[in-house]
């Protein structure tokens, strides 16, 4: 297990470096820079600004500067929110995205599992059909339709929840964004869980347990354990996405999370901010992939034993 873990960590570092380099150089390909705006700057002033931000140095030199400050954990100054460093922006936004994302994933796992379980246990055809139908709905409905509908329903019509804003994390303000984030995930988890459970229930070792007369509780426990791997694999990827923020949910509900920095940074050519977001998201994806692999190895002993020599 330990060798497996160390090997994966060792591979993550060069992967991250390649991603950083790609992002750095690709971004400079887009026309325009951070100081282009409706009111064109006096060319002398523009030159001066570029000099102050070291944007007039050769690209490789700029890249080397960037790597050096990254090694110190310094993402640099934001070029759009010029009173802040990228580290300061992330210090507020990352915990918010993680908090919302974690709640959404938890809701997704609980509700999705319950739905999948219900569908798999149903004796007739109707149960799974309902779950499949509801899941399709949840996957197909775009976020920018669901979010305004929720705002209109709970906010403007029933007046029981705020329409938007973060309000320093008040739980009333978190409910609608969490539900919006969770809905597509609930749908996918429900479908995956249902299909996996049906397969698991048909497995030889389950039939053996039934033959021994084990109580239903015990049987479903084993079946769930066998059914989890595909769900866990999916969750790993989904978690990285959900936890680093969804730009649409954040924009519509007015949440100061990480997702908006990605898009606002790219559109505004805020090089340092985009690079910082790329590093954070890439690191999150690598980390979650690693966690998923570890959990899978724990859940399914065959993975562990197969990777042992001899």
């Amino acid at each position: 297990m330990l060798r497996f873990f160390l090997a994966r960590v060792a591979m993550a570092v060069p992967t991250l470096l390649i991603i950083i380099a790609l992002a750095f150089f690709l971004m400079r390909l887009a026309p325009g820079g951070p100081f282009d705006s409706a009111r064109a700057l006096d060319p002398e002033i523009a030159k001066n600004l570029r000099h102050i931000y070291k944007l007039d140095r050769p690209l490789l030199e700029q890249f080397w500067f960037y790597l050096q400050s990254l090694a110190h954990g310094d993402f640099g100054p934001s070029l759009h929110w010029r009173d802040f460093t990228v580290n300061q922006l992330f210090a507020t936004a990352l915990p918010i995205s993680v908090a919302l994302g974690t709640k959404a994933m938890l809701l997704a796992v609980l509700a999705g599992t319950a739905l999948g379980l219900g569908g798999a246990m149903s004796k007739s055809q109707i149960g799974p059909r309902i779950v499949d139908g509801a899941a399709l709905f949840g996957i197909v409905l775009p976020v920018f339709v669901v979010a305004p509908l929720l705002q209109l329903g709970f906010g403007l019509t029933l007046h029981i929840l705020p329409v938007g804003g973060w309000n320093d994390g008040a739980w009333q303000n978190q409910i609608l964004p969490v539900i919006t984030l969770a809905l597509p995930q609930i749908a996918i988890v429900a479908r995956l869980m249902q299909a996996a459970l049906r397969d698991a229930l048909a497995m030889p070792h389950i039939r053996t347990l039934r033959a021994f007369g084990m109580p239903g509780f015990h049987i479903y426990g084993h079946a769930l354990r066998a059914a989890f791997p595909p769900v866990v694999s999916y969750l790993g990827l989904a978690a990285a996405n959900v936890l680093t923020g969804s730009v649409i949910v954040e924009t519509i509900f007015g949440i100061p999370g990480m997702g908006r920095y990605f898009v606002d940074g790219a559109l505004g050519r805020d090089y340092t901010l985009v690079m910082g977001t790329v590093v954070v998201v890439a690191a999150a994806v690598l980390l979650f992939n690693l966690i998923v692999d570890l959990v899978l190895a724990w859940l399914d002993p065959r993975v562990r034993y197969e990777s042992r020599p001899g």
Partner: protein
Amino acid sequence: MSGNLRWHRLAFQLLVRVAAIFFTVLGLTIETEIGCAAEAPALMVWHRGELGDPGSLDPHKAETLIESNILDELFEGLVTLNARSEFIPGVAASWTVDPTGTVYDFQLRPDAKWSNGDTLTPDDFVFAFRRLMAPATGAPYANILYTLKNAEKINKGELPVEALGVRGLDAHRLEITLEHPAPFFISQLAHFTAKPLHQKSIETYGSDFVRPEHMVTNGPFMLKSFTPNDRLVLIKNPAYYDAAHVALDEEIFYSLEDRSAALRRFMAGEIQSYNDVPVEQIGFVRSHLAEAFKVTPSLGGYYYSFDTRRKPFDDRRVRQALSMAIDREFLAERIWGGTMDPGYSFVPPGIESYGAPATVAWKDTDLFEREDEAKKLLAEAGFGPGSQKLEVEIRFPNSENHRATAVAVADMWKALGVETRLLATDTMSHYAFLREKPPFDVAWWGWFADYPDAQNYLFLGQSDNQGLNHASFSNETFNRLMQEAQREASPERRRAILHEAEALLLDEQPDLVLLTYSSRNLVSPKLKGWEANVLDNHPGRYISVVP
């Protein structure tokens, strides 16, 4: 079997439990909502929606309208604006000008203070102007105040900052010397580049002086907190000389880019004003929020620039023809839902010192007659049936309204036998394109006044205006007229010269004026003291909120 039925029920119960938790939380929410719905009754707060965040709270790094709105609340310059956007004395109680029109003597209010209790002195202005012009500051808007003596040379590194024509005469008098007489100079002093700065804060904290714990201001408000993408909170400045008349306790700016979401928050009462409206919902807004919806002409122009460096757009007849054939009323009413006005002059109407602007000669001619005239002009220039076909490419930033406008214009040009291609790029790329100026046919751009003077529009046609003369218009007579206007001390004569220059510009049509902007605001009836005006300026100093 009973076993299965039991587990079936258990799964169902799990789902029910999730739902139960949700509704319990909702129930708690209802209780706490009712409890929190009434804010502490003593606090009067203006919840103000804006289209985004300020990029910086340092007046010497600011560029956008959002920053201008916030900085106007925090700092007050020598001159300021009242609720109707009229210029009134600010920190300067009065001033005199010498006969040459280049030396101003400002007498500062003796009761002007900073928010930490320090007295405001002329040195605060001297320090601020010098810092504005210092090349190391990198102020994007420094060139607005090149009216100050030696400012341009200092900003380009040719002279030291001490050479700037700003000095304190005594504890309450500030003398400003200009490069040449400028009747609009007083209106420039209300701009955020002309705000004073607290020298000690900047010397102690450097660029961190803008953080809430360090910021010292002299305006009606002070900075309490700023969370990017969330909100910016201002509180009343008790040291402000007119604090007794400031009704608001707090002013909160919300950064709301999504106009539809902002509209919903306005309707829920979470914000009391917002300075835009989702254009596709204007019908709904007009019918359901008629009292709150305010459309006011504002000083912004919507232009299509021709690249006059290239054939055939170097031919005045081609430019005139393409301009004449456009039905501006259709664009304003049908494409923009009445939130824009047809544009027939280069300078938008509404600048008091300029009066009614000049208009194109064919403004009142019937559209069909204009089309015929346009075809004639094109034929003279060598385009039309039997000769070459004219092909035009319109470049614009990728947004629905720009696209709809371009499509409509292309259709109108089709009637002249012109073949039009549309090219949309993202906003940044479009501005970068305008800056780099590779060859193009027609490119969109918009221009809003920095200060209400005709010169702030007409200077776009000057051949020495490298950054903003997108059409590369170069006309000796026009340049000469603009220089004359710059040197002219008499306001009436100056006005006449500028009108002449505008007429020339309209006759040449290097930039095709399509529309002039209107500001679109949603204003809650609970907000008092909010007055519609052409500068779309609404200082919190005059605002109060009815509970």
